[in-house]
C-alpha cells in the first residue's frame, strides 16, 4: 500500500485518435513506485460534478521526467472535463494503485492481447517484459482502425503488433481472440498470456488460455468510488486461483485490477 495523494501538473494533453487523449502528468510519487498494470485515480474537477475521482491505467512510467502518461477515451462528463484541461494546470492524483502484472509468469514468450483503452496499460507491461529479456507478441484490437491505440509506441520498442478490427478497416477483420486462437492452432504457444480490454474479450481470452493450460493474467475494470480499498464498491466474484477455497468478492482496486484468469467467476462478476 505504497501510494500517495498529491498535486500533479499536466505536461501534455493531446488528442491521439478521435475522442482519445494522451495526458502526461508530472507527479514524481507515481513513476517512483509504479508497476505495469497499476492505475491512478484523478480528480477531473475542483467542483462537485462529477463528485468522484476517475480511474485510468498507467501507459508510460517516466522516472527521469518524474512523470507518467495515460490514454483515455472521452465517454462521459468526467473524461470530457479531463479533455478540456490545459497544459500546465494542476491536477489531483492518487496513486499508483492496485497490484500490477506479475512480470515473472512462466517462460520468455508471453502473449499480450489488448483491446480499446485496454491497450495503454499493456504498453508499460511490454516495456517491463522486454526489460526482463522476454519477447512479447502483441495483438491489438478495436472496433475500427481509429481505435487501435499506441501502435507507434509499440513499434518504437521493437514490437510489431498484430491487428484486428471489427470492421476490417485495419488488419484482421474480427476479434483479437480469433488471431489468438489461430496462432495457438498453428502451434505458436505462448508461455503466458496478459490481457486488458472489454469484459467479453477478457473472458474469452481467459477461457482460451485456461483451456490450453497457459498461465493468464487479466486486468479488469469496475466502477470505483475510492480506488484504495475502503468503499468495497469495485468487487468481482472470485475464487482462489487453485480453485480450493470458497468463492468470495475481491476488490478490483486492491486485489486487482490484475487477476489470474482462474480466479474470476464470470457469471457472477
Amino acid at each position: 500500500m505504497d501510494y500517495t495523494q498529491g498535486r500533479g501538473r499536466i505536461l501534455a494533453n493531446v488528442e491521439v485518435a478521435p475522442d482519445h487523449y494522451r495526458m502526461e502528468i508530472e507527479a514524481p510519487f507515481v513513476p517512483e513506485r509504479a508497476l505495469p498494470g497499476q492505475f491512478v485515480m484523478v480528480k477531473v474537477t475542483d467542483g462537485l460534478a462529477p463528485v468522484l475521482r476517475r480511474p485510468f491505467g498507467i501507459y508510460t512510467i517516466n522516472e527521469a521526467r518524474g512523470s507518467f502518461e495515460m490514454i483515455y477515451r472521452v465517454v462521459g462528463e468526467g473524461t470530457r472535463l479531463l479533455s478540456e484541461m490545459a497544459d500546465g494546470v494542476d491536477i489531483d492524483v492518487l496513486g499508483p494503485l492496485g497490484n500490477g502484472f506479475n512480470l515473472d509468469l512462466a517462460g520468455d514468450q508471453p502473449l499480450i492481447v489488448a483491446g480499446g483503452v485496454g491497450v495503454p496499460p499493456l504498453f508499460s507491461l511490454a516495456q517491463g517484459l522486454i526489460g526482463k529479456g522476454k519477447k512479447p507478441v502483441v495483438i491489438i484490437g478495436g472496433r475500427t482502425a481509429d481505435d487501435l491505440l499506441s501502435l507507434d509506441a509499440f513499434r518504437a520498442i521493437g514490437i510489431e503488433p498484430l491487428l484486428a478490427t471489427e470492421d476490417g478497416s485495419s488488419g484482421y477483420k474480427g476479434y483479437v481472440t480469433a488471431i489468438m486462437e489461430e496462432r495457438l492452432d498453428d502451434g505458436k504457444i505462448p508461455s503466458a498470456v496478459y490481457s486488458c480490454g472489454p469484459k467479453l474479450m477478457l473472458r474469452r481470452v481467459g477461457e482460451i488460455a485456461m483451456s490450453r493450460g497457459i498461465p493468464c493474467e487479466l486486468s479488469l475494470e469496475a466502477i470505483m468510488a475510492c480506488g484504495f480499498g475502503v468503499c468495497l464498491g469495485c468487487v468481482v466474484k472470485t475464487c482462489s486461483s487453485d480453485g480450493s477455497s470458497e468463492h468470495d468478492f475481491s476488490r478490483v482496486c486492491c486485489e486487482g485490477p490484475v487477476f489470474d484468469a482462474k480466479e474470476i467467476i464470470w457469471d457472477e462478476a
Partner: protein
Amino acid sequence: MRPDLSVNLAGLELKNPVMTASGTFGYGLEFDPFFDIGQLGAIVVKGLSLKPKAGNPPPRIVETPAGMLNAIGLQNVGVDVFLNEKMPELREKKAPVIVNFFGNTEEEYVALAEKLDGVDGIAALEANISCPNVKAGGIAFGTDASVASTLIGKIRKSTSLPLIVKLSPNVTDIKVMARAVEEAGADILSMINTLTGMSIDVRTRRSNLANMTGGLSGPAIRPVAVRMVWEAAKSVNIPIIGIGGIVSAEDALEFILAGASAVQIGTASFISPTAAIDIVKGLERFLADEGISRLSDMIGALEG
C-alpha cells in the same frame, strides 16, 4: 490562540468533533498512507456483524448528481476477525475507536453488543438500525418507532459503553424516531444514514446496481440531513452526531449550528482520503478567522 475544538458527547470526550462515517473509512488502517488517523476526533469502523458477510453482487455503486448510490450489502470481516486482526493495531492509534454494528435479529444485535462490551480501546458503540429486520418481514428496524425502541432497550442492557444509535432518514417523522430511541436508552444519536435511491441504465434497461436499489450519500443529501439534525436536536436532550454530504468545514458547521455536537465524514473520504483531517484544519481556521474561541459555543447556535 488556537481555538478549542474539543467536544463532549454524553461523557465521550473528543479532541475535535470530526469522526469518520462507518463504511467509508474501512477499518481505519487503510488511511495510514495518507495521514495520522490519531488526529481525528474518533474513528468509526465499517459495520460489523456476528459472522463475516460477503455482501451484494456487483455492480455495487454508481455515481449520481453530487452523490453516489451504494449497495455494498454490509460486507464485513465479522466481529471476531475485527477484534483479533484489526483491533490490536487500531489500539495503537491515538483516536477513540467507535464500532458500528448491525444484526438481522434483536438477538444478533445483543450478542454483538455483549461481545464488544469492555473490549480495550473501544470508546463507544454505534448501532446501525437501518437494516432489515428478518423477523418483521424485512422492514428496517429503523423505520418503526416501537420496533426500534424495543431493540435499543435490549442493546442498552447488554453494554456499558456509550451507545450511539444511527438513524435512518427514510422515515416520515425523524422527531418521533429520535425521541423513541432516546427514551429507550440511547446516549447519542448519529444521523443520517443513506436515503434509499435507484439509478437506471436506459440503454441496457437495468438498474445500475445488482441489488436494484442502494443508499444515496454525498453532498446531494446534505440539505435533508441538516434539516433532520435540526428537527431532532429540538426534540431530544441527548447529543447528536451530524452526517450527510459533508465535504468542507463550512458543511460541518451547518450541522453544528443546527444542533450537532460532532460530525462524521463519509463519501468525502473517497473523493479525498484526507477529507476528514482537512476538515479538522478547516474548522480551526474558520474559528480563528471569526474570532471564536470554542467550537462548542457554536453547537445549536442557529438564529431565527
